[in-house]
């Protein structure tokens, strides 16, 4: 077979024909490179370059130059990522962050035994595939992020999966363009995909969230994350010349060609269907078992997953700074008629590439054979600085690795940010009663019970889910975060070291101010961690940006603002980012042919150690006669809130976060919890104080009485509704035993904290308004029914 040659004159049309997402400057760079070589490139070479240079792999927007103007001044940002998120991490220089932004996932130290264990965390998106084939898209999304964690260092054992979804409401009844799936179907299928894949791998899916917004109707967002545990000796990977290139796991087929280039462009009706695959969880499980067994025998020197770009990316990445020689005829194939470039670029799932010292090959083969897992020797790493790929002796690729990895021309993008004019919300227009608004909030899709979803996930496999996603007397209240005690991975049942994972996401704030959204998301994620008793001082963050086209200066401007928010949040809270990912071009043509973009979305995932799982906390009220303390100040911040939605109040500002004040409050609360002064804690987010109090009460099946006059106010507030439902950040509600109140107040010295109510045996939620009269009195069962009814009604 002769390798396909691509004449240089015709690059543009070939680029269109093969749906490579290369722009004019990049094509020119390719042409220059091959002109200097005096030869035409092969199809496989161009495919490799297109993959490696795609937005998906290179993150051109985040790492490329941007000219940013906010109306007052214009500045040139050489590398957005490096000037914001990475800068904060660099400056914070936390010693427990073992690896940030380098490997497949961020890694931090874990556990009491210093230096023995480390924990790796990665969150990925799989948006484009899920829009077209939600079941397979979700499955392969989970599979991909699990392999990311398997490919950290020499491999981490996955101990937790997370899932966060953004969809349009399942009862959406507007027009959809040809080929677009209904949001209800997308939701059901994505849940089924995460369930079937995660459950089969034996990884608990115990943390997550749901967010509904009409802006996601054509571009659903599916975030999947994995936390893995690895011994610290396995952190270092190193490829040596002479090591064998070994492909392990599933076979290579024609499926999944062009995934990376596909997800680097907007969705359209003719998006290549071959980019979508169905997962094979059994193959991944075999790969997982075999790989970790081989790791513990120290049989290989480096490993990475085959993600976007398949072998081309995996081998290209590992060979960087060295060189590689690949013989494609050695790959195990699903079908014998694959062309060489197809083998090289195929994104068939459940594959990984290892660098194996030749003397270990026999032992490695035995370990993999014992798990019924296939492997094949593709070639060897060299020291030539070249990537040489052949098929039956025919040259397929012969590229300079320097050009492949560093030849990408940087194109400056323009970003514009215009701050929206602050617009006061007319509070006097609130026409509904507090009880009505509370039920609206509780049954709102973004607040309601996710039990319908969570019960379908095996969230207790590995027997380490000490704080479960559903909490309370009847195991059905909304937990703030989960706590995982990973003894199945460490084998140490006497050591109760654990970790907690939570999320923060709120596109409604982002519509008003992406900068404040970023701060609010970090605040929410950290708040959630505190509520389960985690050590937030040692917390770390992950960012996932999902945005529309960065070629639109206003979209890019908002993205820059959000990234700056991440920087300021990280610095302000003293909490570094260790990993992140962006997914851009989340937009498509709607039924009228107009471009519909998603709202700029930032998911913050946070992980913090829990020194002793036996001292963790849940959010349900534990008994009658206890005091309820509200930490933090309440201001009139209604922009993007559920109250604004419930009463149709437009405008307003997104809630503001003062990270310095918040951080010291969080630190004090965490210390109080560690001392055992708090019975339960819950964070105030969507729906504010009223929703938090209701959730704590009905989960614990004890009533609560709250006096709004006692709430600490950041200025004059004369409305009960504002105090009940506004979404000021950095606030927590704590339940405290009467005999511990004095100690708590001492521990929280300097923190704004007010005793706002008491718990009681009578199962009602009662609120005394500013005028001293009862403004809300509802039985807990009615509130719980409102909160629980939504998803089953819409989905069953």
């Amino acid at each position: 077979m002769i390798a396909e040659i691509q004449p240089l004159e015709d690059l543009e049309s070939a680029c269109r024909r093969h749906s490579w997402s290369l722009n004019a400057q990049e094509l020119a760079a390719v042409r220059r490179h091959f002109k200097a070589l005096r030869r035409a490139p092969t199809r496989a070479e161009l495919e490799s370059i297109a993959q490696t240079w795609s937005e998906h792999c290179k993150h051109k927007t985040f790492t490329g130059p941007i000219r940013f103007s906010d109306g007052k001044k214009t500045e040139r940002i050489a590398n957005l990522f490096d000037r914001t998120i990475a800068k904060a991490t660099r400056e914070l220089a936390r010693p427990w962050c073992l690896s940030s932004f380098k490997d497949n996932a961020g890694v931090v130290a874990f556990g009491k035994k210093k230096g023995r264990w480390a924990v790796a965390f990665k969150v990925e998106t799989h948006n484009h595939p899920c829009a077209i084939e939600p079941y397979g898209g979700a499955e392969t999304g989970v599979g991909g992020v699990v392999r990311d964690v398997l490919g950290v260092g020499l491999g981490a054992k996955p101990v937790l999966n997370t899932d966060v979804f953004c969809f349009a409401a399942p009862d959406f009844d507007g027009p959809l363009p040809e080929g677009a799936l209904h949001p209800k179907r997308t939701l059901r299928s994505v849940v089924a995909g995460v369930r079937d894949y995660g459950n089969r791998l034996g990884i608990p899916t115990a943390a997550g969230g749901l967010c509904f917004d009409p802006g996601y109707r054509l571009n659903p967002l599916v975030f999947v994350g994995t936390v893995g545990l690895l011994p610290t000796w396995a952190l270092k990977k190193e490829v040596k010349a002479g090591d064998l290139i070994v492909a392990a796991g599933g076979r290579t087929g024609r499926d999944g060609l062009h995934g990376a280039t596909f997800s680097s462009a907007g969705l359209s009706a003719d998006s290549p269907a071959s980019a979508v695959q169905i997962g094979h969880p059994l193959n991944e499980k075999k790969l997982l078992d075999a790989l970790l067994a081989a790791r513990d025998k120290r049989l290989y020197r480096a490993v990475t997953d085959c993600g976007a770009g398949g072998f081309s990316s995996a081998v290209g990445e590992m060979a960087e700074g060295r060189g590689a020689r690949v013989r494609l005829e050695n790959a195990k194939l699903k079908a014998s008629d694959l062309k060489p470039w197809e083998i090289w670029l195929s994104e068939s799932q459940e594959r990984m590439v290892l660098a194996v010292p030749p003397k270990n090959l026999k032992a490695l083969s035995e370990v993999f054979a014992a798990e019924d897992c296939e492997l094949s020797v593709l070639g060897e790493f060299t020291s030539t600085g070249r990537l040489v790929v052949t098929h039956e002796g025919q040259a397929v690729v012969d590229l300079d690795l320097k050009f492949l990895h560093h030849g990408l021309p940087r194109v400056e993008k323009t970003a514009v940010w215009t701050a929206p004019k602050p617009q006061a919300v007319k509070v006097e227009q609130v026409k509904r009663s507090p009880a009505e608004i509370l039920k609206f909030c509780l049954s709102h899709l973004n607040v309601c019970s996710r039990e319908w979803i969570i019960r379908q996930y095996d969230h207790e496999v590995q027997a380490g889910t000490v704080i479960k996603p559903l909490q309370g007397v009847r195991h059905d209240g909304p937990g703030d975060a989960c706590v995982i005690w990973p003894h199945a991975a460490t084998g140490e049942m006497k050591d109760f070291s654990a970790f907690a994972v939570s999320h923060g996401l709120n596109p409604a704030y982002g519509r008003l101010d992406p900068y404040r959204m970023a701060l609010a998301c970090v605040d929410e994620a950290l708040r959630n961690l505190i509520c389960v008793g985690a050590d937030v001082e040692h917390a770390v963050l992950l960012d996932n940006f999902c945005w529309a086209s960065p070629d639109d200066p206003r979209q890019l401007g908002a993205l820059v603002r959000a990234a700056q928010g991440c920087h300021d949040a990280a610095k302000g809270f003293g909490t570094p980012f260790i990993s992140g990912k962006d997914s851009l071009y989340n937009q498509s043509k709607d039924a009228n042919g107009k471009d519909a973009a998603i709202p700029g979305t930032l998911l913050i995932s946070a992980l913090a150690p829990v020194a002793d799982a036996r001292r963790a906390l849940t959010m349900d009220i534990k008994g009658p006669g206890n005091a309820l303390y509200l930490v933090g100040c309440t201001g009139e911040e209604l922009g993007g809130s559920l109250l604004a939605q419930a009463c149709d109040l437009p405008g307003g500002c997104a809630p503001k976060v003062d990270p310095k004040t918040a951080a010291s409050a969080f630190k004090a609360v965490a210390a109080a919890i560690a001392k055992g002064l708090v019975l339960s804690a819950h964070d105030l987010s969507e729906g504010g104080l009223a929703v938090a109090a209701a959730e704590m009460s009905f989960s614990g099946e004890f009533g609560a009485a709250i006096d709004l006059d006692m709430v600490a106010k950041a200025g004059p507030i004369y409305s009960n509704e504002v105090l009940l439902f506004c979404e000021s950040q950095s606030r927590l509600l704590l339940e405290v035993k009467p005999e511990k109140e004095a100690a708590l107040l001492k521990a929280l010295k300097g923190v704004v904290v007010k005793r706002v109510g008491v718990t009681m045996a009578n199962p009602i939620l009662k609120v005394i308004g500013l005028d001293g009269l009862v403004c809300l009195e509802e039985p807990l069962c009615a509130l719980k029914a409102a909160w629980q009814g939504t998803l089953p009604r819409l989905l069953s």
Partner: protein
Amino acid sequence: MKAPKILILRAAGTNCDLETENALRAVGAAPERVHVGQFRSGRRRLMDFDALVIPGGFSYGDDIAAGRVLANQVRLYLKDLRQFVRLGRPVLGICNGFQVLVKAGILPASNTCEQTASFTVNDSGRFESRWVNLRINSQSSCIFFKGLPEMIELPVAHGEGKLVLKSPRQLEEMKKNKTIVLQYVSDDGKISGYPDNPNGSVFNIAGLCNAEGNVLGLMPHPERFTAIHHHPNWTRQTFLKSGVGLEMFRNAVQHCRS
């Protein structure tokens, strides 16, 4: 005293083996996780072990039907399992392991090797992961439940857990010989429907044993309740006894020693 050697049988897709191993080690056993392929090749022998645990998971992806492929392998490669049972050595099938024991014709025990019961998809049509209340049949001779209270709690997590029997007469027989050892009940101990019975099992059956009491299969996961901190309400301090699951494993180890 020597720690009993306990085989944890693995296959592709088994995924509760590590926590089961931890639980067994905690009660003084010497557990070993062995892939079924080792028995296929004849490298290992069942008879070298004092007890057998088939843990939970999705053996072979639960393709075709839950536990079907592994059950066929057990018939093929663990031919001496019936002898193992006759010798009174403990055999425990958890979740997927229970499905395997049933499909391999080990439970409900019969004179032939025929499969006499089976599992089908939960009535809800969905995978269900939740804690359930269970009632132990105090008249059964099952060795695993010795000394445990009549009412216990354990978590279930399965999609195909609805037990189906060959005939109504079989149910009467099982009642008579007291092999229905575990039933899903409400929190006040009554037989009731969904969600107390998470899958719609006939007669709310959650676990079966043989008449001698050394073979137990159950859908709930004892290895997920080995510390009080596994209980969903441990933070409410309403549950302060030790984990029920751990006691079950302790009983098995005691039995091996006696």
